[in-house]
């Protein structure tokens, strides 16, 4: 049995029971008493700032009031009407940057109504019923292909199916769910929640799922357009940015998204090998999720190295604090300049940076950290544009996800306009579905 001190990359650094404890729910679900107390704090604000701050515009005061009047299932309906993935969003939304930041009680007391946890209470209650709360409209006879079964594709497919269209939902992976299934820290969606949510969502009927079909490889827009009346592309960002530092191809240097996906798919966390000294390069949620989970698996030293200053980090302050509380070291204004080792990484050299206003500049001063595992988490890229017009590095869309090609919509991380949040992808998928519906019915 290995320990946190074991050199190199090793599995089972902690006893299995410690790992199980570490990966338990980040926030335990509310008990009814907690939900009653928390919901009581909502002021039922007019034109509420929390709703404005929610990308899916959930009627938050209404659902909280429904909880407080003893109707959590009515509350869940209010949530799902706007956001069919309200269960996952309750777990992964950076509420501290969205609804809870906007809460008037955050301004007044520094203590917002705990909207995310209340949302989970409501959605968990309804989903525990094991029945689907929506019925499909009369069949329209229209067929729509939804390519990508992540948050955007799932939201789009559900809305289309509900409106009476027949949907085929494709995904390149072996199972549906996208980043919910493969890309989010395990402690945010315990007990296989992502897969259970997909099953529950598909309960609407009218959605045929075909996995292992990748746009650009197995599917083309031309072929899809021949068979379907409309196509929605929500393929996410499958590629990973390179570090462009010497030594990047060494053993022990991998993509954080792959590590997280492996971690999410394994049924034995102790079997996952992790370094004693881990360095994660990046400043977003993926960096945080990878770093924290390395620590929870028993890595002795985990460092997040971010090239800019703290206030530029895309991971929220809450997530940064979470990482710090787990013992992750946060380094700012450091840029990897070299990765060294004898075929296998042993050390990483970082150069301090300064933002001079004329862009990020190296200061010339460097620091070396021991590293037997380096994760790259410096952003993902589109790996298949399927011939659609791009704007920058994403599929160009206007309005509710209209691409440059007639009959093709796009949304989620692969399209322009979003902010790479689950909840935003859901909103985009839903809104594209409504636009597709209008298009199909006129």
């Amino acid at each position, binding site marked *: 049995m290995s320990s946190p001190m074991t050199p190199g990359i090793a599995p089972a650094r902690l006893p299995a029971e410690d790992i199980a404890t570490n990966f338990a729910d980040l926030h335990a679900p509310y008990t009814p008493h907690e939900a009653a107390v928390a919901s009581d704090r909502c002021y039922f604000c007019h034109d509420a700032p929390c709703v404005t701050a929610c990308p899916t515009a959930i009627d938050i005061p209404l659902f909280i*009031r429904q909880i407080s*009047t003893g109707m959590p299932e009515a509350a869940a309906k209010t949530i799902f009407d706007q956001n069919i993935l309200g269960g996952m969003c309750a777990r992964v939304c950076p509420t501290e940057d969205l609804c809870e930041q906007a809460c008037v009680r955050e301004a007044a007391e520094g203590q917002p109504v705990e909207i995310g946890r209340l949302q989970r209470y409501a959605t968990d209650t309804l989903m525990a019923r094991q029945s689907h709360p929506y019925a499909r409209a009369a069949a329209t006879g229209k067929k729509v292909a939804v390519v990508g079964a992540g948050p955007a594709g799932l939201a789009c497919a559900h809305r289309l199916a509900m409106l009476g269209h027949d949907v085929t939902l494709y995904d390149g992976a072996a199972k549906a769910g996208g980043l919910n299934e493969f890309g989010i820290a395990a402690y945010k969606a315990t007990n296989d929640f992502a897969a259970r949510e997909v099953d529950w969502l598909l309960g609407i009927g009218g959605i045929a799922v075909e996995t292992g079909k990748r746009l650009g490889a197995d599917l083309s827009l031309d072929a899809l357009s021949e068979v379907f009346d409309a196509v929605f592309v929500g393929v996410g960002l499958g590629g990973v940015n390179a570090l462009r530092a010497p030594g990047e191809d060494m053993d022990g240097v991998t993509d954080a998204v792959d590590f997280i996906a492996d971690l999410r798919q394994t049924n034995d966390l102790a079997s996952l090998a992790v370094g004693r000294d881990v360095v994660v390069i990046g400043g977003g949620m993926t960096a945080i999720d990878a770093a924290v989970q390395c620590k929870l698996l028993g890595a002795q030293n985990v460092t997040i190295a971010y090239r800019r200053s703290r206030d530029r980090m895309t991971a929220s302050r809450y997530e940064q604090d979470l990482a710090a509380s787990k013992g992750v070291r946060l380094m700012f204004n450091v840029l990897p300049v070299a990765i060294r080792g004898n075929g296998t990484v042993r050390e990483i050299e970082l150069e301090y940076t300064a933002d001079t206003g004329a862009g990020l500049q190296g200061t010339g001063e460097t620091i070396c950290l021991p590293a037997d595992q380096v994760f790259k988490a410096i952003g993902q890229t589109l790996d298949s544009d399927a011939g659609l017009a791009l704007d920058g590095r994403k599929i160009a869309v206007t309005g509710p996800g209209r691409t440059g090609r007639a009959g093709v919509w796009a949304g989620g991380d692969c399209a322009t306009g979003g902010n790479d949040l689950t909840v935003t992808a859901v909103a985009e998928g839903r809104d594209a579905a409504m636009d597709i519906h209008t298009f199909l019915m006129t």
Partner: protein
Amino acid sequence: MADLTTTFLGIKSPNPFWLASAPPTDKEYNVRRAFEAGWGGVVWKTLGSEGPPVVNVNGPRYGAIYGADRRLLGLNNIELITDRPLDVNLAEITRVKADYPDRAMIVSLMVPCEEQAWKDILPRVTATGADGIELNFGCPHGMSERGMGAAVGQVPEYIEMVTRWCKQYYDKPVIVKLTPNITDVRKPAAAAMRGGADAVSLINTINSITSVNLDTMSPEPSIDGKGSHGGYCGPAVKPIAMSMVSEIARHPETQGLPISGIGGITTWRDAAEFISLGCGNVQVCTAAMTYGFKIVQEMISGLSEWMDEKGYTSVEEVVGRAVPNVTDWQYLNLNYVAKAKISQDDCIKCGRCYAACEDTSHQAIAMSDDRTFTVIDAECVACNLCVDVCPVENCITMEPMEPGQVDPRTGKVVQKEYANWTTHPNNPGAVAAE
């Protein structure tokens, strides 16, 4: 989702939630917004006679009572009836009713107790196309000093007389709104019935002073250092209103008289409770004034969800369901024995139950050194005070004892048979069991 369509006195509305006659229904702008928000009907703010309208004070009109976290529990007001010209109100009512034919539109009226005054205004109300009228015999402040409002509602003979005039000069339903500022609400209700009223609505507001400013020694709301009693409403008055509603619903003389329930209705549950006590629909004011018109959405979804859960398919099925269970104290089953039970899993060890029981009740809760609170069955009379003061819902419950068990407090075997005070040996007037 259960259909909430309600027919009250033949007036159909998409749900049983009407806005009560009050500041929120004083003008077209508000009422249109209310209908857009989903309210099933409105009772337009009380109209007075033709002529110069009443005037209101130009200082605060409202006072409030708060619960924890500044939650508004009770509101009082010294606002009078509409202070806008009669013509303006009538024209607006006509327009709004024409644009919202599916919503209930009731016009509240308050004119002097003279036949001519009613004869004058009623045809003008008829011309608006409104669905009915409500006679404001309830407002306890201001207008009562001029012989109207509660001053009428406190004299059953006047109620009967005016109601009769209205039935004579108006063809559509007449609802009589009752004041709670009386000793026995059955008397004015019966008077309304004798006068031919189609329904009663209750309660109007209660005489009240919400607070006194201890620097100026003026009651609040204070107008230049003086205050006047106002009409009290909001969640705090709900128990008073429900009791009065139930008295009318079960009194032989007034039984079956349609009732529109009013008094602190804030949630779907409050509404369902009023309806179960015999109300054909409910009227709401303070909840809308506290939270805005949107609050009706919770009432609609909650009532509908609850009806689905219970298998009710119409509001009518719920009306009066609890009335047979409202009885006199003398008929309560004295053989029913319960004991408090504290769930140790849910207990947060605050000790409020202990303080309440030890200091003010029956010393029936034991407290250990490690703050474990347990009920002493031999002392517990099941008064429920511990349940009422416990901050955790359902942490303390009242568990009925099974017949055949021995009540450790009395040493007597719990009897299965129902027995009440009328036959109790301690009752000097007990009727011998046959």
